[in-house]
């Protein structure tokens, strides 16, 4: 399992990458995709939708189950990765490239972990 150093992680297994422009890319972690199994559907928000830190903004479905994806930040949706809806398997194959949305106007965030802390957190959960 792989947790890139340049990302921050949530306790609900999302990753977030803050950019120099003050925006943030959001996706689900390698651990999340492994736990969920083969993903076959993603329900994404629309551009301009509000995001609230710690609250669900999308859901992903595996063959067996539905899971909420929580936003690590409060802000608005600047861009949506529509390609993900066409190819949900990308979340399994390349979870850190398979971003869901780009957030802007960020005013708040949940408690975030660095890669090392997240790895330890995952181990304690497993």
């Amino acid at each position, binding site marked *: 399992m792989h947790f890139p150093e340049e990302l921050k992680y949530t306790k609900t297994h999302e990753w977030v990458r803050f950019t120099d422009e003050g925006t943030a890319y959001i996706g689900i972690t390698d651990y999340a995709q492994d736990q969920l199994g083969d993903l076959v559907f993603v329900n994404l928000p629309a551009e301009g939708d509000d995001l609230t830190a710690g609250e669900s903004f999308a859901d992903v*479905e595996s*063959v*067996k189950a539905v899971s909420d994806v929580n936003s690590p930040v409060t802000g608005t949706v600047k861009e949506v990765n529509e390609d993900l809806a066409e190819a949900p398997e990308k979340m399994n194959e390349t979870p850190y490239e398979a971003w869901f949305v780009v957030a802007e106007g960020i005013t708040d965030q949940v408690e975030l972990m660095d890669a090392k802390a997240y790895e330890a957190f995952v181990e304690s959960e497993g």
Partner: protein
Amino acid sequence: MELKRTPLYETHVRLGGRIVEFGGFEMPVQYPTGVIKEHMAVRETCGLFDVSHMGEVLMEGPDAVKNLNHLLTNDYTEMEDGQARYSPMCNEQGGTVDDLIVYRVKEEHYFIVVNASNREKDVAWIQAHVSGNVTMKDVSDSWGQIALQGPKAEEILLRLTAPENIPEKSYHALWRRDVGGICCIVSRTGYTGSDGFELYVPAEQTEALWNLLMEAGQIDGLIPCGLGARDTLRLEASMPLYGHELSDTISPLTAGLGYFVKMDKPDFIGKAALEAAGKPSQRRVGLKAVGRGIPREHQDVYADGKRIGQTTSGTHCPYIGYPAAMAILDREYAQVGTRVEVDVRGRRVEAEVVKMPFYKK
């Protein structure tokens, strides 16, 4: 309640199976290959399932057939040795206690296979309703069961046994057959919609048989499959699952299983209630999602601005390649081609009533 383990529990852990609770057992829901690959293996090559959690009950005695015909909706009068016959088992109200398979071992000897989660309930029910010269015995703990399912199943099995040990016809089984040196019941049955076998094996030899089959099938790409794929496969083949399409309050007629309900039999438990109820007002249908989203179980279905029923199972079906569901809908909306909407967690997803099964080999 303490969870039970099948004789293959350690094997599943060794193979990286993700263990979940099902029917009172700790069972693998999937292996590292994942549900989709496991599902596709059964459609295209072959998959191996541990189904040792299923319950087995022996019914024996001169009055065995009479009792089966009283307890079950199907007719057990005319059967050959080794033949298997599916049946719902109804309660007095016409609801369903369980659905099961009965094999005729030989005259006066029957082998009944029931759902793991209903085993105790079934045994108590049968015991309370048998009469005359008949004995019954729950032998579930003595038997393991392995399902070898997929188009390559026969070829793989032939590497371990002689052709005369393989039943030619589906829903037939052969007793006491040597498979790789292990004495098994070889049954041409399954719960996937693909060709295949269910091998009943003494509990203590289940692991040895599993390993022999895995080795024999390696060249064809045989992989272990978990309950996740078992569920998507049976749904794609539109087979009912107790607790979903059937329950204590869902009659086999509502579930579209009229073929297995022989109303012309003199009597069986539930017959009077089914007769009195007449044509059911609701019936099981297949739904194909045409909008974006995956209908799941127990979601409300709407048409003409009103609620017309509920889904009973639903998932993305890997082989047919679209999300499919089964639902119990008001009869007037059960025609193929009818457009409905499924409430998928607050979002309406458009779906169409389609012919079942979704997949047929």
